[in-house]
C-alpha cells in the first residue's frame, strides 16, 4: 500500500528545542557541519540526544566519526531529524579515551560505535565486544590504524591460532554458519545463525572480511586521486560514491558547479540506480530459486550497461565525476539512442510489475517474511528502500535536494507492509521513476560548460555531505588541513546502517526464509567494510 509523503513533525525547530532545554551548557555553531554543530562534552552528548529523540520521533544517527586531533580524540555524532541534519561534537583525551554509549537512546548506533572503537581506540562504556569488529582476528593489540602515528606499512599481524579439535555432531544442528564463502552471498561475511529446529533464535554477524582500509589510504593520496579511490569502494554504486566525495570537496572549496554539469551528473546517477535496482530484482529471484526471472532481469539490464558505456566509456566504473563538474560531455548524437533504450525498458516494465505483485510463488516466498515494523525501523536508523518499505519516508533526493534533483519532478515510493515483498516492490517502482527522471533531464538539458577549474590545494575546513545511493543514504565527512592531501575522510554506506535491521527481522523466522530476507536488504559488503 502506498502512502503519500507526510511528515507530521516537519515544523519542529530542533535547534530551538536544544537551546531551551540545555541553554548555557552547550555551544551551538550555526551553519557548520550541516545545519549546526553542537559542541558538548562526555555525558552531555547523551542529554542532547535524549532531548532530540523526545522532541522528534524521526531522529536517527547517520554516522559516528572518530578524529585524531593530536592530544584528543574527537567523536562526532551526525544526526538526522525530520527536517534538519546536524552534528554533535565531543572530545576525549587520548590517554583516557572513555565516553558513554548512546545505544540505549538510539539502538541503531551500535555498529557505528563498535567501528570507532576498533579503528581509533575510543572506549564506549556499555558497548564493548570481545575481539575485533571490523579488523581481522590477527590484528595486533593496541594498534589503532586511523591514528596519525600508525603507518600502514609497519603493521605486523599476529600468527593464526593453532587449529582446535572439534567433536563431530551427528544429527544435532544448533549453529549454522552462513559463512564467508556461500552461494547465497555475493561477497564474504559471516553470519552464525543459531536455530532451534527450523526457527532462528539468534544471528551473530562478523563483518570486516573485505576491509581494505580505504579511509586510511585516502589520507595519503591527493584529492584528485582520491576520487578514483573512493569510487572503488563499491562496484555497483560507484558513481554515487564519487559524486558524494566530489560534492563534499566542493563544499569546502565553495565552488559552484555549472548547471549543465548538474544535469549530466543526475543522468549518470540515475543510470547507476537503474542498473543497480535491476541487479537486485534479478538476484532476489535467484535466491528464491526463480532462475527464469533472474535471467530475464539481467538480460534487460544489458542495454543499461551499454548506455553507461556510451556515456562514460566503461561498463562498470564510470569515472565521470571530478571536482568542479563532469569529465566528459554528453554528445547530442547519443541522445536518441538513450531515449530508445529507455523506451524499450519502459515497455517491459508492466510484465515485471505484474510478476512481483501477483505471481503466486513469489507471494508465497516473500509476503510476511522479514517484517520490520515502523517503530523498529525508526529506532534502528535504517535507510533507503528498507525504510521506505516499512512506512518511513526518507529520501535524500526529496529531503535535501542536491545536484539538479530540486528541479526535476518525481514521486517518492513508500509501502507500509514492511516485509520482503514491500521492499522489492519499492525498488520495482523506483525503476520507472528513474526512467522518468532521465528523460526529463535529457529534455531539459541546459547548455554551457560542463566543468570549471578547481584548485588542487584545498584550504582548511570541514564538510559533510549526503546523497541517495540505490541502497539508501550515503554520507561522507571530509576534513582538510590546507595541504594537497585530506586529513580525514569518513564514508558511511547504507548497507552498514541496514544490517542491524536484518539481525532483528531474522529472529523467529524459518531458516529457509533467511536468504530472501537478507537479499531484500540489498547487501553490498564492499560498501560495508570499505
Amino acid at each position, binding site marked *: 500500500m502506498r502512502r503519500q509523503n507526510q511528515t507530521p513533525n516537519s515544523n519542529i525547530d530542533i535547534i530551538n528545542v536544544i537551546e531551551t532545554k540545555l541553554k548555557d551548557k552547550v555551544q551551538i555553531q550555526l551553519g557548520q557541519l550541516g545545519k549546526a554543530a553542537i559542541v558538548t562534552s562526555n555525558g552531555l552528548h547523551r542529554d542532547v540526544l535524549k532531548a532530540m529523540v523526545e522532541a522528534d520521533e524521526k531522529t536517527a544517527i547517520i554516522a559516528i566519526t572518530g578524529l585524531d586531533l593530536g592530544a584528543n580524540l574527537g567523536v562526532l555524532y551526525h544526526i538526522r531529524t525530520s527536517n534538519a541534519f546536524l552534528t554533535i561534537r565531543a572530545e576525549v583525551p587520548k590517554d583516557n579515551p572513555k565516553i558513554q554509549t548512546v545505544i540505549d537512546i538510539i539502538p541503531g548506533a551500535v555498529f557505528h560505535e563498535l567501528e570507532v572503537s576498533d579503528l581509533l581506540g575510543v572506549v564506549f562504556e556499555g558497548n564493548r565486544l570481545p575481539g575485533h569488529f571490523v579488523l581481522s582476528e590477527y590484528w595486533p593489540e593496541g594498534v589503532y590504524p586511523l591514528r596519525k602515528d600508525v603507518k600502514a606499512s609497519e603493521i605486523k599481524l599476529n600468527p593464526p591460532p593453532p587449529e582446535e579439535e572439534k567433536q563431530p555432531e551427528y*544429527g544435532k544442528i544448533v549453529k549454522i554458519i552462513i559463512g564467508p564463502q556461500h552461494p547465497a552471498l555475493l561477497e564474504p561475511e559471516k553470519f552464525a545463525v543459531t536455530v532451534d529446529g*527450523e526457527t532462528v533464535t539468534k544471528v551473530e554477524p562478523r563483518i570486516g572480511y573485505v576491509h581494505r582500509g580505504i579511509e586510511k589510504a585516502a589520507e595519503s593520496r591527493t584529492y584528485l586521486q582520491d576520487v578514483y579511490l573512493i569510487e572503488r569502494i563499491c562496484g555497483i554504486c560507484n558513481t554515487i560514491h564519487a559524486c558524494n566525495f566530489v560534492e563534499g570537496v566542493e563544499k569546502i572549496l565553495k565552488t559552484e558547479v555549472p548547471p549543465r554539469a548538474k544535469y549530466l551528473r543526475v543522468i549518470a546517477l540515475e543510470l547507476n540506480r537503474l542498473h543497480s535496482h535491476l541487479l537486485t530484482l534479478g538476484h532476489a529471484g535467484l535466491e528464491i*530459486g526463480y532462475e527464469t526471472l533472474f535471467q*530475464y532481469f539481467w*538480460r534487460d539490464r544489458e542495454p543499461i550497461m551499454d548506455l553507461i558505456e556510451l556515456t562514460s566509456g566503461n561498463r562498470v566504473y564510470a569515472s565521470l565525476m571530478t571536482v568542479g563538474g563532469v569529465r566528459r560531455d554528453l554528445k547530442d548524437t547519443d541522445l536518441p539512442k538513450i531515449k530508445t533504450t529507455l523506451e524499450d525498458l519502459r515497455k517491459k516494465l508492466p510484465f515485471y510489475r505484474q510478476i512481483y505483485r501477483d505471481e503466486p510463488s513469489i507471494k508465497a*516466498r516473500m509476503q510476511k517474511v522479514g517484517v520490520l515494523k515502523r517503530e523498529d525501523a525508526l529506532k534502528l536508523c535504517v535507510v533507503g528502500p528498507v525504510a521506505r518499505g516499512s512506512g518511513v519516508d526518507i529520501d535524500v533526493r526529496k529531503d535535501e535536494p542536491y545536484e539538479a534533483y530540486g528541479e526535476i519532478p518525481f514521486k517518492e515510493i513508500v509501502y507500509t507492509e514492511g516485509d520482503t515483498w514491500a521492499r522489492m516492490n519499492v525498488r520495482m517502482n523506483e525503476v520507472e521513476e528513474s526512467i522518468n527522471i532521465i528523460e526529463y533531464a535529457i529534455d531539459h538539458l541546459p547548455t554551457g560548460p560542463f566543468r570549471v577549474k578547481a584548485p588542487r590545494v584545498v584550504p582548511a575546513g570541514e564538510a559533510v555531505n549526503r546523497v541517495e545511493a540505490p541502497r539508501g543514504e550515503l554520507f561522507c565527512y571530509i576534513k582538510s588541513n590546507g595541504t594537497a592531501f585530506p586529513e580525514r575522510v569518513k564514508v558511511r554506506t547504507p548497507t552498514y546502517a541496514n544490517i542491524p535491521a536484518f539481525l532483528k527481522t531474522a529472529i523467529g523466522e524459518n*531458516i*529457509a526464509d*533467511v536468504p530472501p530476507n537478507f537479499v531484500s536488504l540489498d547487501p553490498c559488503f564492499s560498501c560495508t567494510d570499505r
Partner: protein
Amino acid sequence: MIDFDLILRILIFPGFTFILLLTLFCDWVERKLEARLQNRVGPMVAGPGGILQPLADFIKLLTKEDIEPRDAKKTVFKFAPLIAFTIMVFAICFLPIDGASVLSTTGFNGDLIVILTFSTIASFLLFLSGWASCNPYGTIGSARVLTQFLGYDIPLFMLALTPAFIAGSLSIFVIASSQTIPYILLAPWAFVLFIIAMQAELEKGPFDVPDAESELVGGLETEYTGAKLAFLHLTRDVQIVFGAALVVELFLGGPYGPVFFGLPAFWYSLWFVLKLLAVVIVAEYITTLFARLRIDQVLSANWRIILPAAILSLMLTVAMVTWVYPLV
C-alpha cells in the same frame, strides 16, 4: 549355454548402455529447453549443438580429486550413490521398452509395486549418503529429502494404482499393452496429479528444496567430490528418466504405437523415446515457470492437497470404471 541375446539385451540395448545414453540425452534436452525458455543459448560448444555437454561434465568430474571427510562413515559414504544408481537402472529394466522388457519377459503380476519400491529404496539410499557425510548442510539436506519423498510416496502409489484399476492388473506389461485409448484421456485428473507428485518425488521444479543451494550450499551433495559426485548426479538423472518412463508406461500407452514398415522393435523404441521426451519437456517447463517453495509449504501442499486429491481421484476412477466406461 550362454544366452548371447540376453547378454546383449542387458548390456547394450535396451539395457545398460541405452539407458545411460538416454539419460545423458535427456539431460541435454532439459538444459537446452531451460536455456531457450530463458532466452539464452544453453550448451553450444561440446559437440554439435552442445549434445556432448552432459558427457563432458561426467568425464570432468571423474578427473577431479576425491576427498573424503575424516569423520564420515566410510562404507556408506562410498557405496550408497553407486547402489542407488544400480537399483534405479535395475528398476528401469522392468519396463517394456521395445515391446518387451530387457529380460525378454512379459513381467509378472505385481511388478508395478516392485519397481515403485525400488525407487523408494534408491531415494532412501540417497538420504543415507547425505546423512553419512557428517556435515551440517548434508544432514539438513538429507533430512529434507527424507521428509519430502516419504511424504509424496503415498499419493504417488495411489495414483499409480489408477491405471492398474482401469487395466485390471498390476503388471506393467498388461497396463501398457491394454491401452487402446491412452489412459491420459480416460483419467486425466490422475495424470495431472501424477505429474505433480512425480515432480516432488524427483525433487524438481517448485519442489527442489533439497537442492536449495542458496541456503544449504549443496544439500546432501556437499561433501561429495570427483567420481562419487558424478555418480550422484547420474543417479538423479536416471531417476528423472525412470519417473518419465513410468508416466509413459502408465498413462501414455507405453511403447506401443503405429508400426509403419519393418521391425516393430525399432518403432516401439522410437515411440518410447518420443513419448519420454514429451514428458521430460513438460516436467522441465513446470520447473522453469515457478520459484522454489519452502519446505513447510511443500509438506503442507502434500498432506493438505495432493493426498486428499489422490484419494478422491482413486474413488472417481473406480466409479468411472465400474459404471461409466462399460456403457461407452
